[in-house]
């Protein structure tokens, strides 16, 4: 039973030099998502058209001419609605790229056809892969500046394929285009008859994201307990994070290990026959159990790990480094606990894709393999199996800042 969706969340990464703003501007313009007053606003004080103003919405970004934080833009075609997270490409803003990529179904990595695959291309593709983005589009831009040369495009495909095996993305598409001239962005290019694929927008409209959600393993993190004033109603509210939830299903509640049956799956509109990701619903159980926020409901036959020890790839987002022995608050699904860093087993070089063993610490924007021990057992899956039950954030208990983003690799 496929789950279909007419919403695609995509992330773009790159710098102004790659023509990222031009590409976004072209997509939004041709999809008629830039309205007249916004278009007027793209002219700065000097009257020149400046497409970076589309996504560089903060005063500091416009003053410095750089993208610092993620900007969200929205557009729709008759086939699909799109949420575009435009993320900064520079290495010093890796944490912002990770933020924008965390919810994306698809990432567009921009390559300048003149320079081909460079260090930044590998870094962006690798971060997309690490964040579990299933679909990657390598947009080979500025084809007009290489005379629409098939050889230049083939060189990018060849170089990229050299490290493709190190990526966990499900599929990779290559599109030769010119954002400036509009070739293969929305309209097919007459200048590149050798290209057999579809323009970028058509690819975005049709790429299949149905198979991306885990419908096999039921995961229902209990978020909130709903009780009405009379005490007659007691339901467990939450967002389905995996699998199918049906009335009559035998379920296991973790960490209590109690087995019970789903009495009903409720919504405002009434009881449902089935709920699946990412629906927000309320579950009632046949037995009166002690179930509360942070618990996880699954099927007895396919339970997640329930452990206090875990290994994860952590993207570090704070100025103060992560070191062994560090203590943090951890938020995983709807569960909050405390965590201590047992060891840092390696740091990833996000450009060479190599692992440096045994670093002393992780600095801002570093990504490393970290071993954690938590104060209470967490019910989790590997991130590669489930992005919702395989991810967590670390919070500095002194500043309350979000300082780390973790993707669980193993217990």
């Amino acid at each position, binding site marked *: 039973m496929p789950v279909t969706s007419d919403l695609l969340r995509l992330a773009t990464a790159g710098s102004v030099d790659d023509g990222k703003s031009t590409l976004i501007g072209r997509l939004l313009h041709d999809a008629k998502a830039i309205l007249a007053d916004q278009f007027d606003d793209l002219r700065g004080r000097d009257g020149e058209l400046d497409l970076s103003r589309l996504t560089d919405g903060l005063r500091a970004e416009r003053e410095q001419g750089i993208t610092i934080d993620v900007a969200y*833009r929205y557009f729709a075609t008759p086939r699909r609605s799109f949420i575009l997270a435009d993320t900064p490409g520079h290495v010093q803003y890796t944490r912002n790229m990770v933020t924008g990529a965390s919810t994306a179904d698809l990432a567009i990595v921009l390559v300048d056809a003149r320079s081909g695959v460079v260090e930044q291309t590998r870094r962006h593709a690798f971060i997309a892969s690490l964040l579990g983005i299933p679909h990657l589009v390598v947009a080979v831009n500025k084809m007009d500046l290489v005379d629409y040369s098939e050889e230049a495009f083939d060189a990018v495909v060849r170089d990229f394929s050299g490290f493709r095996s190190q990526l966990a993305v499900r599929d990779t598409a290559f599109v030769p285009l010119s954002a400036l001239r509009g070739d293969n962005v929305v309209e097919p290019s007459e200048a590149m008859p050798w290209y057999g694929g579809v323009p970028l927008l058509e690819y975005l409209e049709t790429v299949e994201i149905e198979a991306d959600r885990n419908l096999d393993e039921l995961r229902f993190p209990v978020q909130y307990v709903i009780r009405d004033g009379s005490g007659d*109603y007691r339901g467990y509210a939450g967002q389905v994070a995996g699998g199918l939830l049906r009335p009559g299903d035998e379920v296991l509640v973790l960490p209590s290990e109690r087995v019970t049956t789903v009495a009903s799956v409720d919504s405002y509109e009434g009881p449902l026959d089935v709920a699946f990701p990412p629906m927000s619903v309320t579950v009632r159980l046949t037995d009166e159990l002690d179930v509360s926020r942070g618990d996880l409901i699954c099927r007895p036959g396919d339970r997640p790990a329930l452990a206090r020890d875990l290994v994860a790839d952590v993207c570090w987002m704070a100025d103060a480094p992560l070191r062994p022995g560090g203590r943090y608050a951890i938020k995983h699904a709807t569960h909050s606990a405390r965590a201590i860093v047992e060891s840092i087993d390696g740091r990833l070089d996000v450009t060479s894709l190599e692992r440096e063993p045994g670093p002393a610490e992780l600095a801002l924007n570093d990504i490393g393999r970290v071993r954690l021990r938590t104060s209470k057992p967490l019910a989790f899956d590997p991130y590669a199996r489930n992005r919702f039950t395989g991810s967590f954030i670390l919070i500095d208990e002194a500043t309350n800042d979000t300082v780390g983003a973790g993707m669980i690799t193993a217990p």
Partner: protein
Amino acid sequence: MKLTHLQILEAEAIHVMREVAAELERPVLLFSGGKDSIVLLRLAEKAFRPARFPFPLMHVDTGHNFPEVIAFRDRRVAELGERLIVASVQDSIDAGRVVEETGPRASRNRLQTTTLLDAIAEHGFDAAFGGARRDEERARAKERIMSFRDDFGGWDPKAQRPELWNIYNGRIRKGEHVRVFPLSNWTELDVWEYIEAEDLEVPSIYFAHEREVFRRDGMLYAVSPHVQFIDGEQAFLESVRYRTVGDMSCTGAVASTALALSDVVAEIAATTITERGETRADDKVSEAAMEDRKVAGYF
């Protein structure tokens, strides 16, 4: 099994609201009677019924609102059986907390920030739901769904907490709070399509009606006791509707013949200008008018 994009946005918004109800002690939902906060109320019903909302509603009333909107506000709150707090800008003026602007372009828009922050402090609220959307304005396009406010109520756009997956960090110290925007990823058209799909009542001023208006800076404003004419401005009758609901003094009307929700949806789908660009004088003060107001604690 298919979810429409509206169903996905709805599920995300419900998740956000429940997360706040679970993690923060004293949330409040800001309800203006406008279309976005009308959608918020329906989402709150979906998130918490059959129980009551785990928070009160609050309206920051400038005293310059459209009477139709205030009447709708009170009717809707009564239907829901929830509690409404009204924080009054007039009270802030009377208490000397703020000084009324003067002149023909005087507006109470900026004054609302003080009234809002005072009310948040007075009631000890640690989270405030708002109906703002990222597609409205470029500073809002950068803001988190759960957005931290310091003990002055201020937003620091350069020091926002990273916000990953559907995990929200609502940890704050006493005196600080979070603003929460469950509709962050909705567009204006999404809001109207949702209102149509859910058959939600909206104030009558969202539909075309005859009104006495005058033209200023290319926009049509309602003739009301809250505005003074500048030389040469003249009142005339026009069939108009409102795209946004703000103060009578700074909210422009658009010429329209849309009488039904489906007409409004069609009009929004075909529009060539943004809602704030077409109707809000408060955004046109400077390039970063919204960013500056948000830094100071605005909605």
